[in-house]
């Protein structure tokens, strides 16, 4: 694993190398070099299996973090490539030309986080939320409770009494505290 990371370091600018486990490592790279790095890993380092693409919303810092998790089936190691993109007008280079299934992840991320992937097939079609017209729901500024109460006719809850106060008012109504 360390040898692979050294190999990467000779060609690409990476930082924050985290050896999570013996067979799992995460590296962070810039937005521009992420897709070239993944392409190189797939073609020359044997990371032929794409596991997943996930997103984290760092709302306070103004970034989205994308993680591309790759697997090398021969050496049985996982490598995660992290990259940070700006939250404002979020856009990322599409990777659907490397693995077909990336397009589905990108379509979902477009819907849930509002990150655009220009050129990705069917990226503008709705995935789970048909006809959604609000803030993308996985963004941190989206208040799901408020939206639910506004939209889905919440059932009014039961009235509940604190037993201590209730019994006191029943038994000793004239007593203070």
């Amino acid at each position, binding site marked *: 694993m360390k040898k692979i990371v050294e190999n990467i370091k000779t060609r690409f600018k990476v930082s924050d190398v985290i050896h999570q486990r013996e067979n799992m490592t995460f590296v962070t790279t810039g937005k521009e070099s992420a897709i070239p790095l993944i392409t190189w890993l797939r073609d020359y380092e044997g990371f032929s299996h794409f596991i997943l693409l996930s997103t984290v919303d760092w709302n306070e810092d103004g970034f989205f973090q994308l993680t591309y998790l790759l697997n090398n089936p021969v050496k049985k190691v996982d490598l995660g490539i992290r990259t940070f993109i700006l939250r404002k007008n979020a856009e990322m280079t599409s990777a659907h030309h490397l693995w077909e299934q990336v397009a589905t992840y990108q379509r979902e991320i477009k819907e849930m986080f509002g990150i655009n992937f220009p050129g990705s097939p069917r990226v503008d079609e709705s995935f789970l*939320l048909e006809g959604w017209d609000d803030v993308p729901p996985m963004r941190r500024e989206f208040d*799901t409770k408020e*939206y*639910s*109460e506004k939209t*889905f006719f919440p059932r009014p809850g039961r009235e509940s009494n604190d037993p201590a106060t209730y019994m006191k008012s029943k038994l000793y109504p004239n007593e203070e505290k």
Partner: protein
Amino acid sequence: MVNKENEKDKFLAPENKVHIVIGPEGEEITVDPLKDYFCEAFPKVHEPKNRIVENFINWARAESLWVLGFGTGCGSIEIPPLLSPRYDAFRFGVAMRATPRQSSVIIISGYLSVKTLKRVIRSYEQMQNPKFVVALGSCTINGGMYWDSYNTINRLDHYMPVDVYVAGCMPRPEALLAGFESLKKRIKEGRAEGANEYATNFKWYKANQKKIIKDWNMPDYNW
């Protein structure tokens, strides 16, 4: 005329737009699927006429419940064991059916996302009268553990009339059998008038449905 886009049918599915079909002899036929393929008439109330005859029919209805094989949420896992030898719902006159046109009971088995609700409404409206709704799990009552989710509904009875609620998260197959028993009791007493209720309050139900299904691209009544 062909594929005329306006504000109203912005979400209309491509197959539901007005289009031209070439007939067997080469003639051109203009088809408006919403008018030609679906019945435009809204549901009507069918009042029970003769009490004695109605009681007999209700007894027959109650003893032969045909359940639509439609699973949503966690409860779709609870239904297959119901038909296995261990619980054996056939003893109670409950059988599954694959199509809404031939079934009389729909089980809403758990949480309903907005996307699924659209399909549920479509299936429910295609079922023939009389039809009964069994709501399974707490998600259908008040949203359950998904009460604050942006994508699951909270109260099923705002979108379709519910006959029997089976509470629990998730109720076991025994609870569902008990639910069927109480549904039978309800039918025999003549209180399971969900289809008539739906027809009476059709506008209210439709307004609620359209409030949350924003890309409404089907006819108002899918018969």
